């Protein structure tokens, strides 16, 4: 099914005989693959309003993100929450759509400064599981009229309704950007350096840490954006502030800085890892991830660490990835002959990550895994009984027949 209009979409949903799998551009869906016929939103496309002076745009849900970015670029504006392009990481093809971005609440490194996708969506039109067309929010920046269903739908992974139109806030694209790099910090030092930077008044719009290449040299990268003199000034001040963490390399070439942040945003460093999960935690809790892993779970040699990590959002977002070899070695911690070692290692690792988050207050979500893992674990962090009951109740209202992306969020 590929409806051309919202009305056709509503009819398709009203007439649906069974479960439906909702697909935008097919580039970023995660979780269990829902059963049923595919319902594509790609034909619901086009920008219907763009007011640069009001910082707002309205587009049909299937509008390609690239088309939106191009339209904004012509007025030196941008989608500020920096939605990642997940195609390399997830091995997907296709064209990312704005609807898919919203359904996944997909936000990039700039999330720490400007907020998440959900903070930029001003209004929605969507069709619920019974084919009812519902509108919420609007096209203005400040709106507290009635309940904020926009937030509820944003990040609901197509499980409450099928988005048809999205109105969102855009922001001016800054004149330039630069990065400050610190080399050779371990994760704990990096988290401390990033906290110092984010606690400064210099308006850091990206704070990430990772190991590049096959060596052990880590890079902690901080991004500044704005008018050139301002960026230059803040870069100097930030270097002074972070002097205790070592000598900073100033990357003042805007295009190089942009490229590096794009790689971070898209997590391309982990594109060849068969296992990738993302953790959202309190940055200072990160230290425990290795400590617990080393002491409680991955105590055995040969691997000191059964996974690779990169940090974004100042350490609030942790990308955890494992190579096939790491997965197989993890499997030896608690062997299970009946299961493929890679799959078994991935299961042990992911369960460890979720139990860590359950204790430390946060969540772990599975993005990419060896075939079969999604069915053996809960790809989204399990919720407390009270919250799960509310979630079930809401789904029963918006999709009483339970046909929309069934089971996608567990």
């Amino acid at each position, binding site marked *: 099914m590929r409806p051309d209009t919202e009305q056709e979409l509503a009819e398709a949903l009203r007439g649906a005989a069974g479960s439906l799998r909702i697909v935008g551009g097919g580039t970023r869906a995660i979780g269990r693959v829902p059963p049923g016929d595919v319902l594509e939103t790609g034909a619901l496309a086009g920008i219907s309003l763009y*007011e640069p*002076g*009001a910082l*707002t745009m309205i587009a049909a849900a299937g509008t390609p993100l690239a088309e939106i970015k191009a339209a904004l670029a012509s007025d030196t504006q941008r989608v500020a929450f920096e939605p990642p392009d997940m195609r390399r990481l997830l091995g997907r093809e296709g064209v990312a759509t704005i609807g898919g971005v919203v359904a996944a609440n997909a936000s990039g490194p700039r*999330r720490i400064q400007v907020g998440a996708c*959900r*903070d930029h969506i001003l209004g929605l039109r969507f069709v*619920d599981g019974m084919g*009812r067309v519902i*509108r*919420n929010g*609007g096209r*203005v*920046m*400040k*709106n*507290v*009229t*009635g*309940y*904020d*269903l926009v*937030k*509820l739908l*944003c*990040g*609901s992974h197509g499980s*409450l309704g099928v988005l048809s139109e999205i109105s969102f806030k855009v*922001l*001016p*694209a800054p*004149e330039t950007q630069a990065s400050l790099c610190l080399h050779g910090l371990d994760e704990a030092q990096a988290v401390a350096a990033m*906290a110092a930077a*984010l*606690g400064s*008044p210099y308006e850091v719009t990206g704070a990430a840490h990772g190991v590049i290449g096959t060596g052990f040299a880590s890079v902690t990268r901080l991004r500044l954006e704005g*008018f050139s*003199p*301002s960026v230059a*000034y803040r870069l100097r001040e930030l270097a002074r502030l972070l002097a205790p963490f070592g000598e900073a390399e100033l990357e003042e070439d805007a295009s190089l800085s942009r490229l590096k942040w794009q790689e971070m945003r898209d997590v391309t460093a982990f594109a060849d890892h068969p296992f990738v999960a993302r953790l*959202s935690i*309190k*940055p*200072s809790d990160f230290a425990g991830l290795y400590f617990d892993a080393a002491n409680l779970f991955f105590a055995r040699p040969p691997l000191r660490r059964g996974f690779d990590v990169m940090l974004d*959002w100042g350490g*609030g*977002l942790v990308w955890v990835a494992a190579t096939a070899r790491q997965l197989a070695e993890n499997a030896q911690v608690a062997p299970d002959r009946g299961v493929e070692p890679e799959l078994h290692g991935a299961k042990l690792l992911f369960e460890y990550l979720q139990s860590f988050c359950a204790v430390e*207050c*946060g969540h772990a979500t599975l993005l990419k895994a060896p075939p079969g893992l999604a069915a053996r674990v809960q790809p*989204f*962090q399990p919720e407390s009984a*009270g*919250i799960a009951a*509310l*979630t079930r*109740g*809401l789904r029963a*209202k*918006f999709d009483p027949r339970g046909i929309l992306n069934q089971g996608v*969020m567990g």
Partner: protein
Amino acid sequence: MEMPVVDAAVVARKPALVAALQQVLPQDAVIVETAELRAYECDALTAYRCPPLVAVLPRTTTEVSAVLRICHAMGVPVVPRGSGTSLAGGALPTGDCVILGVARMNAVLETDYANRFIRVQAGRTNLSVTGAVESDGFFYAPDPSSQLACAIAGNIAMNSGGAHCLKYGVTTNNLLGVTLVQMDGTVLEIGGPYLDAPGLDLLGVICGSEGQLGVVTEAWLRILPKPEGARPVLIGFDSNEVAGACVSDIIKAGVLPVAIEFMDRPCIEATEAFAKAGYPMCEALLIVEVEGARAEIDAQLGLITAIARRHNPVEIREAADEDEARRIWLGRKSAFGAMGQISDYICLDGTIPVSSLPYVLRRIGEMSAQYGLGVANVFHAGDGNMHPLILFDANKPGDLELCEAFGADVLKLCVEVGGCLTGEHGVGVEKRDLMKVQFTSEDMEAQLWVKDVFDPGWLLNPAKVFPLDVTAERRAG
């Protein structure tokens, strides 16, 4: 203002209710005497008053849970109350309700600079959240005009904004998590000191739900490092249209000021007479504030004033020092008080697309002539959130009704041009009956589902937000 008929059966159970509440709360936390209940008969929408059956002032989440469990079991409606500063009647009681005030829950529970959050009890006032962290160079960004008095609980209920949300966003953008007590007494933690809670964004729908989904007793709030400095510039114009065009040009130029405030002539005249801030007498006035280090501020203000000069301003006044900055803000900050000196007024809160500003201001002027009531406009121009103040005489019979009819017409106009009924004050009882102007019955029904799920018995603040006829069946149970 129509309110639901008081449930006589509930009123009859008052002695049993009071006895049950006194079992779970200290003596000073249960207020039953008529004279004392007067303090809770209204919020800042003072035109409407009704003493509640009982008021309770719990000190802990456990006490809140116990109160709600009792009210749930006895079928008593509960109206949560922060500091009672709602301009929309969000905390207006009914005669058969328990007012649940969280004002005594005002502690700071945790401050964490490395992870940049603070956890507070929800009765804490907005300004005192910043007060708890500012000596360490941090602040809590949302700054409603009532911030000295208003509580975080009320900010969350109404998703409050403020003058600086052009850059920093409103409450929902600065809220990380809450402890929520459901009507049946269940205590839930939703979100927490991390970004983007898993699963459905329940936090997002709780924020702004006007106390209808649960009682928020604690909150994790994002705190931000204070900017190095801030400086306003005041720009006067000889027409509203030109000032509106200037706002649009500033935004298009890629500068993002922290605030762009707008005042029209009636407002300038009134505040000048009251606060003597030394404003130029002109048709429209903008206050634009930027942040950063001195050199950055100079550069941004240079750009802004260059744009303003293209619009033939009557005056441009940059603050040279702290004192001048204070004087520039003085008039704006005393605008509401100043208007109150010269007349009774109601304050509207519609939002419009910034591009419609000149048209909407012109239409409001025409309506003002039609209704024979004066209007002063003062608002957050950068985000289109208008606050027309409609002046009336409370002692003149029929004037309040006339004023409300005028207000309703203005809000309908806001919706007509693509905006909304309320940008930051909330619907409450004030705009409840206008919801049908903005939403179809399907749109509203979808919102009601959320309340059905969180509060199946429709006992929490039930007479607010949605038109009474729309919710009648649900409220009847």
